[in-house]
């Protein structure tokens, strides 16, 4: 009873919990509860604490090169967007870009980056196929489509075959889950020496992947225009990203042995970078689906092309999001290990 009287109201605590960035929730919520004297005192403490903690986390986790590259990618995608046949003006794109970047920062601060369970991952696959079915059914109402024509029949058959796509997406998603599980099994934490070894192994793996991905990005810069259309924006982003990854490798080689804070910072940077890279690799394929399927489909009244393009976009987004959430979840598990025990 006495404990209950000294605790903040549950509803108030839940609101404060939502306002705090995920990494700070546990400790700051506990501290605020420990010093609780009354609801107004609690609100005063919250007002003095939460904005400062949120701002500090946003600043701490903002990886500006990564955000810059993400901003360039968003700009490229929006600049290619057509609404009623017309492109967006620069001020609209700038506003959308600023909003997008702010949303990214907030998602990183407040989003739950834990790896999804098997059940949740399969549900995601089911929702994806459901969305594709809805888009295909909606496409039946496409203007200038000849009812009973070849496209109409093809689209109907495609709709019938969609339930068979579900196991494929489910298998791909499960494959990603199992791969992440295998990586997570290798993580152990039996004291400071094991942590140092884990950091060293992580740094070595990141360096290896960075070199491989840099080479792949340089190759991608030549291939991307074939998929995404003519223009230098996307190849420039590919090359800038390759340069950034290579620079990361060169800089880390000259730094000394890392500490816990160095490992934590490296993990945060890696999470942001992987988030950006998941969508960078998806971008040319998304643009290809728009350019080669959806826009010609709308222009020529070919519903089947629009249906195929929509399905491709939804599936690519599903896979990009899945790969990103697995990686983010693994990194979150590593960071949780850093918090797990006393520092010796």
């Amino acid at each position: 009873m006495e404990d209950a009287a000294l605790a903040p109201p549950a509803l108030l605590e839940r609101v404060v919990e939502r306002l705090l960035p995920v990494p700070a929730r546990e400790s700051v919520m506990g501290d605020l509860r420990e010093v609780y004297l009354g609801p107004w005192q609690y609100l005063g403490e919250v007002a003095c604490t939460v904005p400062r903690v949120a701002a500090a986390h946003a600043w701490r986790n903002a990886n500006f090169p990564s955000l810059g590259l993400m901003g360039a990618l968003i700009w490229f995608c929006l600049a290619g967007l057509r609404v009623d046949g017309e492109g967006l003006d620069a001020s609209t794109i700038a506003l959308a870009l600023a909003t997008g970047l702010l949303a990214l920062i907030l998602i990183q601060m407040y989003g739950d980056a834990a790896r999804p369970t098997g059940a949740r991952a399969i549900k995601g696959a089911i929702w994806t196929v459901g969305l594709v079915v809805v888009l295909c059914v909606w496409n039946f109402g496409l203007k200038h489509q000849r009812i009973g024509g070849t496209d109409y029949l093809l689209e109907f058959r495609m709709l019938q075959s969609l339930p068979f796509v579900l196991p494929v997406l489910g298998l791909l998603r499960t494959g990603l889950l199992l791969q992440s599980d295998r990586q997570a099994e290798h993580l152990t934490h039996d004291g400071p020496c094991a942590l140092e070894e884990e950091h060293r192994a992580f740094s070595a793996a990141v360096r290896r992947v960075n070199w491989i991905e840099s080479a792949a990005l340089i190759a991608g810069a030549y291939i991307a225009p074939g998929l995404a259309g003519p223009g230098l924006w996307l190849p420039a982003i590919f090359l800038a990203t390759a340069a950034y990854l290579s620079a990361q490798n060169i800089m880390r080689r000259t730094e000394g042995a890392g500490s816990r804070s160095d490992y934590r910072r490296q993990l945060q940077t890696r999470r942001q970078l992987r988030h950006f890279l998941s969508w960078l690799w998806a971008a040319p394929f998304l643009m290809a689906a728009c350019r080669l399927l959806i826009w010609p489909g709308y222009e020529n009244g070919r519903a089947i092309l629009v249906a195929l393009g929509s399905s491709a976009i939804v599936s690519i987004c599903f896979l990009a999001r899945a790969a990103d959430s697995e990686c983010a979840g693994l990194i979150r598990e590593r960071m949780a290990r850093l918090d797990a025990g006393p520092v010796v």
Partner: protein
Amino acid sequence: MADQNLLGQFEQVVLGAVLSLGKNAYGVTIHARVVELSAPRSVTRGAVYATLDRLEDKGLVASWLSEPSKERGGRARRYYRLEKSGEQALRESAEAAKRLYDTLARSRKGLAWKTQR
């Protein structure tokens, strides 16, 4: 040698608080000690958390989560401890502050002001 330019005055106070608290250095106790050391200036809890995060990013302190406790609604405490680089930075700051104090005391031929508590 730690770069002293990286340590602000408030950072020195927070490091001093963490060092003086030993094994009992977590958010609540660190804030209370910082308030003591900064008196009569008031210090918000958020400023202390932000500074602790900054110090951790610089590698001057390390932190970890304890076991959850019932009095905190089943939430863990985040304990802090000075790293070697943090101890060194604090020592150098203290030595610099002492040299400045001694210089001022000599130049004014004894202190003409009283320290405020």
